[in-house]
């Protein structure tokens, strides 16, 4: 029974979650594009000659946060940069994409990316428990951060505990690659065949949390990852 559950999480649910996520994001974007444009400018002065460039800088370097909340800025930048690296590192696992040399048994960052994310997400979570941010927060704010924390923690377990075995790696980058290769090629192969050993449960939990994250994403504030740029462009132009 548990094997069938693991299989569902590791294969069909991944497809469902990705499809759900992509459709949800597309629906959100379509709905937004269908809404009428605002009739007046929402710009804040002074003007810049290159509003798009300024909006890009605003989006990717968070200058207003740096100015008013330097510590939050540090963790936000750590979090977001590490998140991008995390996506790259996961894509790197797919043999067809292999971004860096396939020789290493480690994921990109050797586990440091995950730790950076875990620490920064903990900071983001803990600051929510303090006034006045606590008074502004709604359940989804905590739940999303908690979900991310659990997701990152299981990821850390996988990437760190992975190399604790006496014989070196329990599971290597190449093993994960084999699992993802099966997913990419729609082989519907049971992943437990390529991801052997005691870590399989942790991996299943990790994938379950990732699936949940993908399913919630289009309907949550995490959509700011797509809309931060157009938002900043409104302020700039």
């Amino acid at each position, binding site marked *: 029974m548990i094997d069938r559950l693991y299989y569902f999480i590791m294969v069909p649910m991944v497809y469902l979650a990705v499809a759900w996520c992509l459709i949800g994001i597309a629906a959100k974007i379509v709905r*937004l594009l269908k*809404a009428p444009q*605002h009739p007046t400018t929402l710009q*804040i*002065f*002074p003007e810049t000659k290159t509003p798009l460039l300024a909006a890009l800088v605003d989006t990717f370097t968070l200058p*207003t*946060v740096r100015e008013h909340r330097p510590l939050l800025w540090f963790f936000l930048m750590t979090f977001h940069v590490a998140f991008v690296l995390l996506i790259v590192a996961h894509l790197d696992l797919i043999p067809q994409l292999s971004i860096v040399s396939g020789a290493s048994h480690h994921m990109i960052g050797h586990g440091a990316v995950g730790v950076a994310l875990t620490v920064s997400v903990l900071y983001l979570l803990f600051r929510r428990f303090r006034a006045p941010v606590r008074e*502004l927060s709604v359940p989804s704010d905590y739940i999303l951060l908690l979900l991310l924390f659990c997701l990152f923690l299981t990821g850390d377990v996988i990437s760190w505990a992975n190399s604790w075995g006496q014989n070196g790696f329990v599971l290597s980058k190449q093993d994960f690659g084999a699992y993802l290769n099966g997913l990419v090629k729609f082989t519907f192969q049971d992943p437990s065949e390529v991801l052997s050993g005691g870590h399989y449960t942790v991996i299943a939990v990790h994938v379950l949390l990732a699936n949940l994250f993908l399913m919630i994403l289009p309907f949550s504030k995490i959509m700011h990852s797509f809309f931060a740029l157009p938002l900043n462009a409104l302020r*700039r132009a």
Partner: protein
Amino acid sequence: MEENQKKELLELFADKLTRAARLYLDNCTRCGVCIEACHVYQSMPETRYTAVSRAQNIRRLYEKYFKLSGKIAPWWNEAVELDDAWMDRVWETAYTCTGCRRCMTFCPFGIDTGLIQSIAKLLLIGSDREPKVLTMLADVSISKGRNIEATKKSFAQAVRNLEAEVIEKWRSEGGEEAVPLDVQGADVLYVALAGKHSIVPAAAIMNAAGEKWSLSYFEAVNFGAFVGNPKKTKEIAQRIIDEAERLKVKEVAICECGTAYRVMKHMTGKHSFNVITFVELIARYLREGRIKLDKSKIDARITYHDPCQIARQGGIYEEPRYILKHLTDDFVDLQSNRRASYCCGGGGGLVIMGDKEFRMKSAKVKVDEVKATGATILATACENCHSQLSDLMEYYGLETKVQFVSGLVADALVQETASRKVPAATSEEPQLQLTAKAG
């Protein structure tokens, strides 16, 4: 709240859901960076006086009625019912905020609380809960525009009666009207307020610069914008646009009234004429040497309050400072200035609404900054700010005098300029003529 009314209100809400509004309502992460942005929070640190809390009052309704998550799991983002009790929160969003948009310079996404506030204001109008004084003023404004022909003659007479005061500040040449009306092909249509303080100094300055100008029959202020009624805002602005087009003017200069400028410049589309603030015009005259100012007239330290509607919302930061530096060598900026300037606390109609206690307490941060400069003159370029700042100085017992930039300039005009030298012998004539006419 009756179902019918709720339905109507939700339709009003839906009409406001532009792309920008949806972006603002969907993406706030409640990071709290905006908390300290608000002058009200700075003066009275309660969470409800933060930009994010005000926005949440509307966002939680949006969640309930316009989002899937609010329908499936209302607890997720704390979706709320639209009912009579919640309308009190909607009121807080609309009228504890002055729409200064300082918070927009804190938010990492640049979420515009002003836009969210406009939804709140519309819901209040729709449920007949808006401040009646603001609606009354908007209605008076509209009625005035419709009956303008009936009052044109007496307005012209009243303007003639002001000419002697204009001439006191600047001697006009013989045969010229000190306050011209209905000038076809004028370069500048000056749109003033009802009060003579917004006509007399401006007229003297434009006459000194030898401007070909005309005074508008209409007042600049737009109460439709204060109450948040887009239809009335447009109707009030349209008659100035019509007048400018009829006279074929090149520029419309808006008197020192922030809302009037923002509405005309940024909220009424493109025009056949250029829209400027009167301080821009003064700065231009100074740059071009068309007027000269006597620095010895003012022996005081001057500071300047940036009116939100012409500064953050209009980009007029340097012109007033340029002018003031022609009036004194002792100009000091407030600690938070230009883009970072705190609101005076009277914006968004608050100065008219009557809750003086809130207005005074919520703007303490401004008073503290004025005090720290040691300035004895606090200049500004907005009628609304002027009223509020004057009340503040009195309430907190400061000696600092609040003055319009135009008023300071008019009092310091050097009578003999290169462009217009008026012979002493003839300078008396217009005064005599006009006094006779006025009597």
